[in-house]
């Protein structure tokens, strides 16, 4: 561990210069959200990360400037929801939906409230999803971005309700809907009512689509369980980030059930594409362009 730190420190100066160059010449999105993020980043210490796929090292800032994609091998890291919004939307066009919820804990599950409070402080998000309305190359859409860092992006009552309200907003205002999915499934800590969110969200999507609404589902890593088997699985257009894990049961559960190792690449985006469950795999660098294209093709 010490050794690794030493090695990383050695690269510090070189990468700092690189980062400075990139930051000054980089894309300067200036929405409130973007400005807010930059402000926070100024005070952050410089950190190094190693790509889990190619093991090359670079600074976190370098990674951020590259949409959280490894500049060497294209490995897609998890991307914080607010940063995805900045990368996707026209400058200053995004308006976040905010709702007030009471503390939700139907099972009175031990430690659940504390865990949520802790995560709220750490992630500065109140739930595992961020929703709002924004413009993509001038085209307005309702956007929901899930956050797998918040209790695995699991779906409880608040998340299900927030997603449903976004769908209903899109329906009411006749807007397209884009959901970036990332979830470990239904939220265990809320029991059966988490399961019922599958019905609630799917029902809302069905009604929206029957009225002619366009829904783009964009799978990001990982999308599994109750989310993959409800609103995530219902897109008119379904996109996926490269190598995202997407499936109903988690790989560990399947391995335990069938008693054998799973094949390489199983349940990854490419596997789904091969078996006919995604329209296209779209890397993050093309995200804005492809979504814009789809919105254009559906303009009324």
């Amino acid at each position: 561990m010490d050794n690794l730190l030493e090695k990383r420190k050695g690269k510090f100066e070189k990468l700092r210069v690189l980062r400075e160059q990139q930051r000054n010449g980089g894309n300067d999105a200036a929405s409130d959200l973007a400005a807010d993020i930059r402000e926070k980043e100024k005070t952050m210490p410089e950190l190094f990360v190693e790509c889990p796929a190619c093991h090359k090292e670079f600074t976190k800032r370098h990674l951020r400037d590259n949409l959280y994609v490894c500049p060497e091998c294209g490995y897609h890291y998890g991307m914080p929801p607010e940063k995805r919004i900045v990368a996707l939307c026209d400058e200053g066009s995004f308006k976040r939906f905010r709702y007030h919820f009471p503390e939700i804990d139907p099972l009175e599950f031990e430690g659940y409230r504390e865990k949520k409070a802790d995560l709220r402080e750490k992630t500065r998000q109140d739930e595992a999803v961020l929703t709002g309305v924004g413009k993509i190359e001038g085209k307005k859409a309702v956007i929901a971005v899930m956050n797998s860092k918040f209790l695995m992006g699991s779906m409880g009552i608040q998340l299900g309700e927030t997603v449903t309200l976004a769908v209903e907003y899109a329906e009411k205002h006749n807007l397209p809907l884009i959901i970036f999915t990332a979830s470990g499934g239904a939220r265990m800590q809320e029991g059966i009512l988490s399961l019922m969110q599958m019905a609630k969200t799917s029902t809302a999507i069905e009604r929206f689509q029957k009225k002619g609404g366009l829904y783009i589902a964009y799978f990001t890593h990982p999308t599994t369980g109750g989310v993959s088997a409800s609103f995530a699985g219902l897109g008119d257009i379904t996109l996926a980030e490269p190598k995202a894990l997407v499936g109903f049961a988690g790989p560990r559960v399947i391995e335990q059930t069938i008693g054998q190792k799973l094949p390489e690449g199983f349940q990854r985006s490419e596997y789904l594409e091969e078996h006919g469950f995604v329209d296209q795999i779209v890397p993050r660098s093309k995200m804005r362009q492809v979504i814009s294209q789809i919105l254009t093709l559906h303009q009324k």
Partner: protein
Amino acid sequence: MEEIDSRIDEILAQGKKPGPMDKVLLARHPKRPKINQYIDYLFTNFFEQKGDFLGKEDGSIFGGIALFHGMPVTVLGHRKGNDLQENIACNFGMPGPEGYRKALRMMTQAEKFGRPIITFIDTPGAYPGIEAEMYGQSQAIARNLAAMSSMQVPIIAIVTGEGSSGGALAIGVANKVFMLEHAVYSILSPEGFSSILWNDASRKEEASEVMKLTADDLLKFGVIDEIIPEPIGGAHRAPTIVFERIDQLLCRELKTLCAKSGSELARSRYQKFRTMDEQFRVME
């Protein structure tokens, strides 16, 4: 099997009521009435419909068209099988995507011909396997949830045994959801729950306590509409009592539901699931 019965007898002898874990065991009791018995007793002229018509027949979903007191209905549910050979043939009641698509095919036809749909829920969950994933387990379940929500015919679901996870809900988006007294309905099995949250599958008893998976709990939550009482010691000890109660219940409910228009039925089903969790999410 005898173990479960003697455990229950002991509880009853002490003048106590079966707790959550006892109910989990009762719900899984090998002799608990199965879908074929419900269909035999409650319906006439049953015509079985097999296949998803996309390449596979999945025995873990069983159903078809039948008459209920002279009225054509579509009836379907999970099939666990009555003995080991049957258990294996229908994968212990754990459907793959083909099973859900088979159910959807039956339900879509029911809507076309204006038949009410009655479903019987009894599954350990959707099957977690390679082929199930390959052929779109998630997609099949999601499609059922969405399609059921907008159907223009009455849908009644009865949880008769284990109602576990999305695999149960995939045939459970109904106007009315009923549950047998000792059935359980949950996000996951207690074993799965404790292994995910506590990394220890052996704490299933404790999990069953905190999960709130009994019919009483679910009635309080508004997830189910009514509890169907079972004979003392469980449905398997006197199945005809349960069949009779379900018969009366279906008569009553179908009379009310069939008087409503298709769009009214879809709207009220939408409202049911839209507002189910309201008591927990609305600020006081």
